[in-house]
């Protein structure tokens, strides 16, 4: 790895970080509060790489080019990292040829587990009672529904009320229901955990797996467990269903 390569790899890594950070792609991978850090890191890398390339080009013009470039004994001042450094171009290549996607149904079926967010408290009452929502159905996060159902004082607030959820369709072989799924991420998509509501379609056609839907549902408080988890999720009845585009912010945050 010559000093020009070093600068080049640094610029490419920084440019990739900046590209991700300055488009909505960053929301497929990180929580939004990480975005400024990625912008700063990308900028620093691009400037550092340009400085390295600039210094090397000046040195070459003066004929004092670096040992690792022009073949002098390398151990005089050896500062070339190992060839593993080339791997830094791989993230860019993966993003371009595989594409940028949020976690899908595959991840949900891999991770269905008896995990729970039960103990987190939420004040659904303040939200649901405070506004008339301009005649619209009140929208809730899947995580809020799961938390609400698990809290004795919040549970009755959901009873019989139509709420609007947006999520990913995951099918588990049931003929008359699907799992409306969102992922909760603490830091990055690598620590994502699914939260799900089982939506009984009651005769409506099941939506395609891995598509996004907006579902107006009524939570069946009687049938839902008091401590919902991946194996024993909240149960709701479908009121109306509409396909939607994947939201730019596909994950929920604890």
């Amino acid at each position, binding site marked *: 790895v010559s000093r020009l*390569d070093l600068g080049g790899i640094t610029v490419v890594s920084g440019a990739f970080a900046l590209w991700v950070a300055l488009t909505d792609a960053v929301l497929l991978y990180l929580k939004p509060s990480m975005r400024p850090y990625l912008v700063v890191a990308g900028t*620093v890398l691009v400037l550092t790489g340009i400085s*390295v390339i600039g210094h090397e080009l000046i040195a070459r013009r003066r004929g004092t080019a670096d040992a690792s470039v022009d073949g002098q004994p390398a151990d005089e001042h050896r500062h070339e990292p*190992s*060839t593993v450094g080339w791997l830094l171009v791989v993230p860019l290549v993966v993003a371009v040829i595989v594409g940028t996607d949020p976690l899908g149904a595959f991840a949900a079926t891999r991770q269905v587990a008896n995990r729970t967010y039960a103990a987190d408290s939420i004040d659904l009452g303040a939200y649901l009672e405070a506004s008339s929502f301009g005649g619209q159905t009140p929208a809730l996060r899947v995580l809020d529904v799961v938390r609400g159902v698990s809290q004795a004082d919040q549970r009755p607030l959901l009873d019989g009320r139509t709420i609007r959820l947006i999520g990913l369709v995951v099918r588990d072989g049931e003929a008359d229901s699907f799992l409306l799924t969102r992922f909760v991420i603490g830091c990055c998509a690598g620590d994502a955990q699914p939260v799900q509501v089982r939506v009984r379609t009651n005769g409506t056609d099941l939506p395609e797996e891995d598509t996004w839907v907006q579902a107006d549902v009524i939570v069946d408080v009687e049938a839902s467990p008091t401590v919902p988890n991946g194996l024993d999720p909240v149960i709701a009845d479908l009121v109306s269903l509409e396909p939607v585009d994947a939201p730019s912010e596909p994950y929920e945050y604890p």
Partner: protein
Amino acid sequence: LSRVVWIYLPVVLLSHRAFADLFDSGAVRNWATIFLSVTLQALPFLVLGVLVSAALSALVPPTWLARISPTRPLAAVPVAGLAGALLPGCECSSVPVAGRLVERGVPPSAALTFLLAAPAINPVVIVSTAVAFRGDASMVGARFLASLLTAVTVGALWSRRQDIGDLRSLVPAHEHGTKLDAFTTTASTDFVQAGGFLVLGATIVATLQTVVPSNVLDAVGGSGIAAVAAMAVLAVVLSICSEADAFVAVSLPQFSLTARLVFLVVGPVVDIKLIALQAGTFGRPFASRFAPLTFVVAVASALLVGSVLL
């Protein structure tokens, strides 16, 4: 290799998703999302780490650090542990900094204590643990104590054999030219060296998360030896950022608090991403001895502290 990369990279970029159909499978997309998120999540912290490390080598006179650090390794160990708590950031920052500290003559045991203490007991991690466990002071305290105990114990064990593996693989700082030249070349070198290994680590993490369903470990549950072992292995495999691991730990109520403490203590000091970074900075022989030692000490510390506090 240089020519191959610089010629084919623009070609790949211009092809713009021409291959996307080839990779239209849930598993491949899942792999790519996890691979990119692990890499991007670590990137800002790695950049912070190489900037601090480059500043150490470009701005701090070579002998100064060695002169101010305590001569007796055992005395240096607790100081480094507390210094580690002050550098905010995840585990990815502390690896290049620790490498540079050793190169500047700081006793390896102290540098390694810093390496282990920095990610585990810094303020950001303490706050996110408190938030995830809703202010459960015993869990926050237990995590802090067990992590500090791990760092100090490993440092003390290592000080008996002042040897940090194959030090030759530490790339020396660039010490000629202007200050800016020295600073940017050192930062760039450290970044490319550590970053390549970070990508390698992210590849393994994404592959394991895609191939092995996490239900396998979740199914264990309980509070016995099996639960502790499962949580320790899960921490290594998942390679979750130490800011986020508490949120995962809190969502696994089928495991005992002590088993979850093991998860929180092991994760920031031994995981796949970190082993790859250490192998890149200190060499593979070092990583192959350091990681198992740290793993055992971390599990033991967590069990000890957990049995007293939880």
